[in-house]
């Protein structure tokens, strides 16, 4: 049961992060195509945004690892 909970939690966290990062990357591509001269600034902002979003999935991952080590001993 705990294994199932950990798996579902990780899956949901991955889903949310995937949506978030894809939105960031999509908007960055849109911005770059509209204003190619601002590509450098847009890329920097995109990487920071993606890193901050990604951290949320990684928190979930850490909690899952903690939960998982608790289950398996």
């Amino acid at each position, binding site marked *: 049961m705990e294994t199932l909970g950990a798996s579902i939690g990780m899956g949901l966290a991955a889903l949310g992060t995937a949506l978030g990062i894809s939105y960031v990357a999509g908007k960055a591509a849109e911005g770059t195509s509209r204003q190619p001269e601002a590509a450098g600034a847009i890329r920097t902002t995109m*990487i920071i945004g993606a890193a901050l979003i990604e951290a949320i999935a990684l*928190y979930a991952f850490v909690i899952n690892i903690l939960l998982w080590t608790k289950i398996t001993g």
Partner: protein
Amino acid sequence: MHLVEEFALHPFTNWTLFGLDISLNKAVIMIWLAAALVFILLFIAGRKAEMVPKGVQNFVEMIIEFIHEGIVEPMIGKKGTPWVPFLTTVFLFVLFMNLLGLVPGMYTATSRLYVTASLAMIIFITVHAAGVKAHGVSYIKNFVPGGVPAFLAPVLFVIEMIGALAKPFSLAVRLCANMFAGHLVLGAFIGLALLFKSLVIAPLPLMGAVVITGLEIFISGLQAYVFTMLSAMYISDAINSHH
């Protein structure tokens, strides 16, 4: 279960100092090796500095230029130039620790939370020391956004304090979890190849492992870059006033 146990450190010695565990283990040796590599690289580059760089000096100048023009200039601005050496060292140190873990038989020091937490603490102390140095006592005003009503200020101050403490936490967990997760996925692919005990199926997960290794090399560089960039952002928040 077996995969996570692969990350367990078995200390070679059993030393303590004032009740603190300072025994030697693989991660400690990897940290020393990474520090030595950074020192050797920068020493060779700076030993005979020439006006027209070539070889190692050229390569190191490229990295420094990348830190200067790609991170420091857009993040901190003109005031940021004195921070270039510090941020270059942080970048190279994290990068070498990340990349050393990809060499077979080595260990990724950055996949342990206490290594990344120590790095994040260094950044945290540096950032606030720089803030106090730049603004003096009035640095505390940075924790209250400009133009808020007086009765809201204490509440916002507490929230901003929590935010300031969350920054090193997120820096540490991001780097550590990224490295740990990458190696876990790599281990899972290789474990899958061994699990089937069949020469027909084994090449497929092994191909996956090769692809993931390529991704890991990319992630190592990217995480070092993100770590440096966020450090530069925090320094910029501390030394450039908002109000």
